[in-house]
């Protein structure tokens, strides 16, 4: 199946959420940018654009979800995931628990931070980009189940 179908599926899930009725705009815009980024010719630019746009969608999905669920403003992606997980399970997250939402998406957060903050850190190949994008999509759809 095509990448476009998956992006549209994610978009539908976001737009169909009662919690995002007002604030779905920015997330859907990012996903739209992400979809159109595949037309960029320059390889490394294309990869970075895809990575950034989807990572930004993940970021605001998670922070919005955390705000809705527990009225806390998330300090970052990791904190937002922890807040959400606490709200969903009703238990405090122990530090470094690999089986929490944060532990599940740790690789995503690490990769995002590397691409965003490290000079010269481009995704090495298309395989890496695809893996990252797949994780982002899984993260968004997983987060939306838990709110």
């Amino acid at each position, binding site marked *: *199946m095509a*990448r476009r179908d998956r992006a549209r599926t994610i978009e539908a*899930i976001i737009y*169909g959420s009662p919690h995002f009725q007002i604030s779905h705009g920015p997330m859907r815009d990012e996903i739209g940018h992400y979809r159109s980024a595949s037309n960029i010719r320059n390889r490394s630019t294309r990869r970075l654009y895809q990575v950034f746009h989807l990572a930004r969608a993940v970021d605001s999905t998670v922070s919005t979800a955390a705000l809705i669920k527990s009225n806390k403003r998330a300090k970052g992606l990791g904190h937002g995931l922890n807040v959400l997980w606490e709200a969903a399970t009703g238990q405090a997250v122990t530090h470094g628990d690999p089986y929490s939402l944060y532990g599940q998406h740790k690789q995503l957060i690490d990769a995002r931070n590397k691409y965003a903050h490290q000079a010269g850190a481009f995704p090495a190949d298309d395989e890496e980009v695809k893996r990252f994008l797949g994780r982002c999509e899984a993260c968004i*759809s997983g987060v939306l*189940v838990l709110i």
Partner: protein
Amino acid sequence: MAQNVKSTHDIAYWRQSIQRRISQVLADNQAVIQSPVDHPYLLDGPDVLVAFSGKLLALFVASRDESISPDRFEQRVKLSFAALPAHTIFLNGSDLDLLPNINGVFVEALPSLSLYSKGKRSHDGPVEVRADVIRSVARHTRQVSEDDIRERARLYKRFFIYDAVSRLNLRKLKPPRQSDSLADKHRIERTTIEQTAKLAESMIAERTARIVKSRPSDLRRLIYNPKATDDWIVVDDGRVYAQRDAPGILVTEDFPTNSTDPDKYARAITFAGWVPADSDWDLARVERGLNLVKGRIRGKAR
């Protein structure tokens, strides 16, 4: 072969006409109507996903295979039910009596929604979507309680644990990629050592995980086989429960590749309650890992 080509063309036509009809009925320019649905956790999801003003409809139509064995259709619905948000409204385009366990979820007014003709995805007749039915469904919202979310979180936690085990196995096989920095390599090494220690710890646990071998081409059939997944996800009165203690191990020679999402098969198989393993792997070791998982589930998740 020629018939295949024809039927895919017909399904595309069917989808288009459904999309057209639904957008006419809803009269909502903003509605997102997507078909085919490609969900990251599902190999086969709903046939059509409709989103409009904070509501999500998932539409299911039994394929030819599924109408021969209704259990498989039920299985697809179950897995989609666990993967999609709790407020999703599930619509059955085919026979309602097919799904006794999920009656609470399926909206009852739908036999009149003749989206399909018996036995196969509708390609023949014109698609009829009755406006009043869709509107009445659109007004309907499922109440989502805290318990519902908690039960889902429990199921996802189970899925994360299975996933951690399968990723541990995968990592053992693959050497760190060259693009990884030195710090990454160290981190991977460290976690592998920690995990190995934990695996050794769990050697005392009893072994009850079951092992199923499968050819790559049969994976999809196996996942949607009701016997295989039945005790993993239970849907009762609109809620999902995870109940099996230990996951099964799925041994395959190779995963079919998905060109746009390399991890998709591993993820979908894990989500269906299996830990994928390559036939090269040391099965005793994998099994020890699974017993560790079992201990964890008993001790912590419950």
